[in-house]
C-alpha cells in the first residue's frame, strides 16, 4: 500500500505560512493522528529549514513528554509529517476562564514539561521557542512539547548562534542583549515565565516590542548590572537602562498569591537574570516543590477544555 493511503485525512485544523495541518486517522489501527503538510517547491533554496529541523529533531527525541513523530512521507507537492493527535495546548487552557487550576495541576504540568525539556537538553538540543502555545495536551492529560522548527543541537564552543530566537515575551535577558553564545539556560528562562503564567493566568512579561520587552522584564525582575550579573555589559546589545531593583521575596509573594515558598524558590531559580546562576533541568526536577504537598495531579485528572471549537 503506498504510504499516503495509510492515513485518512478528515478535516483541516490550521494553516500557516509554510504548512497546513489536518486531523485524521491511521487506517490500519484507527489511531487519531495529525498530518502537517509542508509545501515544497517554490522555495529557491529547496526545502524549508524549519521543516528540516522539525523532522531532524523529532526523529531523535522519543519521550513521553515530547510530541511523537509517527511517520514521514513525501508526495510530489508536500512533505508530510504524521504526528500524534493532541487536541489543544496550554495557552487555550490558561485563557479558558471556566477552567480552574489548582496548585496540584500547575505542579503536574510543570513536572511533565521539565521532564520533556530535560530529555531535550540531555541530548544536547535547545528548543528555542518555548511558550504555552507549543505545549500540547493529549486526550489523557499528558503534556507534550511540540514545534521544533527553531530547535538546534549544541555544537562546538566557537559556533555562533542567532540571538533572534524565542517569542518575545519568553525571551531570556541574554537573548535580549544579543548574545551569540547562549546555552540551554534560555529554555529554562522560558519555562520559568511559563510557570509564572500558569500561576497568574495571564502572561507575565508582555512587552509591546523589543525595546519595551527589556523594560517590562526588568521592571518585574530587576535590571541586570555588573554586580548581580558580572560580564553583562560585554554583551553586544547591552544598553544602560533605568535601574530597577530586584523584587524582594515579599513582593513576589504579593504578586503570586497562590504560590508556596518552595514554588517561589523554584521560580526564582528559573528566572535568575544571570544565566550562569540559573538552575538547569536536573536541578529543578530535584526541587522540594515537587515533593511537598499538594502532590502533582494525575494527568487523567487534570482540567480539560470546556469550550467547543468554533
Amino acid at each position: 500500500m503506498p504510504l499516503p493511503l495509510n492515513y485518512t485525512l478528515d478535516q483541516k485544523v490550521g494553516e500557516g505560512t509554510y504548512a497546513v495541518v489536518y486531523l485524521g486517522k491511521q487506517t490500519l489501527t484507527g489511531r487519531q493522528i495529525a498530518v502537517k503538510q509542508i509545501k515544497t517547491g517554490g522555495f529557491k533554496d529547496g526545502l524549508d529549514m524549519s521543516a528540516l529541523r522539525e523532522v531532524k529533531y523529532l526523529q531523535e527525541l522519543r519521550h513521553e513528554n515530547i510530541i511523537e513523530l509517527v511517520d514521514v512521507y513525501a508526495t510530489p507537492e508536500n512533505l508530510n509529517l504524521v504526528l500524534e493527535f493532541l487536541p489543544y495546548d496550554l495557552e487555550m487552557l490558561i485563557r479558558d476562564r471556566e477552567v480552574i487550576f489548582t496548585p496540584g495541576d500547575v505542579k503536574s504540568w510543570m513536572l511533565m514539561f521539565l521532564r520533556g525539556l530535560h530529555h531535550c537538553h540531555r541530548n544536547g538540543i535547545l528548543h528555542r521557542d518555548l511558550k504555552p502555545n507549543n505545549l500540547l495536551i493529549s486526550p489523557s492529560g499528558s503534556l507534550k512539547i511540540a514545534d521544533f522548527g527553531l530547535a538546534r543541537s549544541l555544537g562546538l564552543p566557537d559556533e555562533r548562534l542567532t540571538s533572534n530566537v524565542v517569542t518575545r515575551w519568553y525571551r531570556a535577558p541574554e537573548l535580549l542583549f544579543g548574545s551569540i553564545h547562549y546555552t540551554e539556560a534560555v529554555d529554562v528562562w522560558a519555562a520559568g515565565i511559563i510557570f509564572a503564567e500558569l500561576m497568574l493566568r495571564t502572561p507575565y512579561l508582555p512587552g509591546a516590542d523589543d525595546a519595551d520587552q527589556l523594560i517590562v522584564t526588568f521592571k518585574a525582575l530587576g535590571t541586570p548590572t555588573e554586580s548581580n550579573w558580572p560580564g553583562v555589559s560585554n554583551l553586544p546589545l547591552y544598553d544602560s537602562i533605568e535601574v530597577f531593583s530586584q523584587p524582594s521575596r515579599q513582593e513576589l509573594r504579593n504578586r503570586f498569591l497562590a504560590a508556596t515558598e518552595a514554588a517561589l524558590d523554584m521560580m526564582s531559580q528559573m528566572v535568575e537574570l544571570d544565566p550562569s546562576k540559573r538552575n538547569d533541568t536536573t536541578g529543578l526536577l530535584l526541587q522540594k516543590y515537587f515533593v511537598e504537598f499538594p502532590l502533582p495531579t494525575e494527568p487523567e485528572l487534570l482540567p480539560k477544555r470546556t469550550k467547543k471549537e468554533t
Partner: protein
Amino acid sequence: MSKVVFESEFLPITTVLVSLFTRVFLEEMSVNDTKPTTKRVSNDDLYRRSSQYRVWSFTSEELQRRRQDNNLNGTKVVKQRVDDLEATTPELQEVKESGVEPITVDEEAKIVAYYARKASDVAHFFKLPTQARATAISFLKKFFLMHSVMEYHPLNVMYSCIFLAAKSENSFIGIKTFTGAMPKLTPESILENEYPILESLQFTLLCQHPFRPLYGFYLDVQAVLPKADKSRLGQGYDRARKIVNESLFSDTCFLYTPPQIALAALWEVDSVVVERYLARKFGYKKKKDDGLASVKEDPSEEPTDVKEENTEEETKLDVQEEEIKAKTPEQHYNFIMTIVKKCSQHIHEALNPSLEEAKIISTKVHFCLEPKKLAKKLAKQRLTDAKTPEVSVSLEAESLKREPDSDVSLREDLKRAKID
C-alpha cells in the same frame, strides 16, 4: 517511499530482560507511577533510541545483502532501459541486442567510495566545518545503500548531499553561491535530488560522528591517567582525528557505534594509553606490560562518584540493574578491546580507488544510465575506424572528451576541489 518504524530490537539473552523492562518502561511511563519503575535509562539505551541505531546500524551480512539487492535492482533497471530503446539506428539495434554491461557490486562500492572522498574535498573547498562535511559523506553513503549507481550518477547526488548537509548542520550555503562556484551545476540539478535523498535517508537527518566522542575520551584520559604527558595525549588526539576522518570512507559507521570508532582510532595511534585507560576505567587490574614508563600510575586515583540526591527507591533499583548486567571488569575490558580491534581493522578496509579506476567505472555508469550514449560511441568508433586506423586511437580519446557531462567535468571538479 519511506517509513519510520520503531523497530523491534532482537537482543542476546544476557540483555533480553533489560530490553523488556525498557520497553515496558517506555510504554507505561506516567507522572505518578504507583509502582516503582523497574529499570533506569542508561546512556546506551539513549543511543538505542537514536535514528542512527534504529535505521542505520547493520550487521556485516545485512550490509552485504543490501548492496547485492541494490545491484540486482540496478541491473534490472538497466536492462529495462535497453529494452525500451528504439532501434532507429544500426548501433542502437546492436546495443539493444547485446545489452549494456552492468556495474558489479565491487565497482559500485569503489565509485561510491571515490565520490565520498571527493565530497570531502568539495566540502573543504566551501570551508564547511567537520560536522557538515562528515554528514555530507554520510548522506551520500546512505543514499547508495538504498539505490544503485546505475539509477543515479553519484556526481550530482554528491553535490546535493553537500548542499543538504550544509543546511541541516547550520552551515547554510545559498543555492546561488553553491552553483556559482561550480560551473555546470544548475540549481535544478541540485534541488531535484533533495527529495530522493531525503526519502532514501528515511528522513533521518541527525548523524552522530565519532569526533565528539573522540574529544570526550581525550578529556577523560586526562582524568583517569592524570600523570600522562599532556603533549603526548594532544598529539595522539590530533593523529586519531585523521584516522576518524579516514573511517568516514569505510563501513564502520554502519557496523559500530561512534564511541567504538573513536576508541579504535585512538588505540591505533597510542595503544598503550588506551589499554591502560580502559583497564583503569573498568577497574581491571592488568598485568603490567612494557612501554608504560611514560604513563605513570597513580594508584590512589579512583573515579569518585558525584553524589546526587538519592531516594531509597533509586538505590534499590540500581542494585537490581547490577544484578542483571553482571560483567566482571576483565570481561568488560576484553569485550571492548575485541570491538576496538575489529573496528580498527575495518577502518583500513576503506576503499581508495585511483582516478583511473574511477574514470573507467564512471564511463560504464554513464552507459548504464543512458544506453543511447553507448550507441553513439559505437557509431563514432565505426566512423573513425572507417578512416585511417592509426588516427583511431587519438580520435577515440577525443570522442570521449566530447561527451557531455563526462569525465571532463569530473577532472575539472577534481582540480577545483583541490583548492583550499
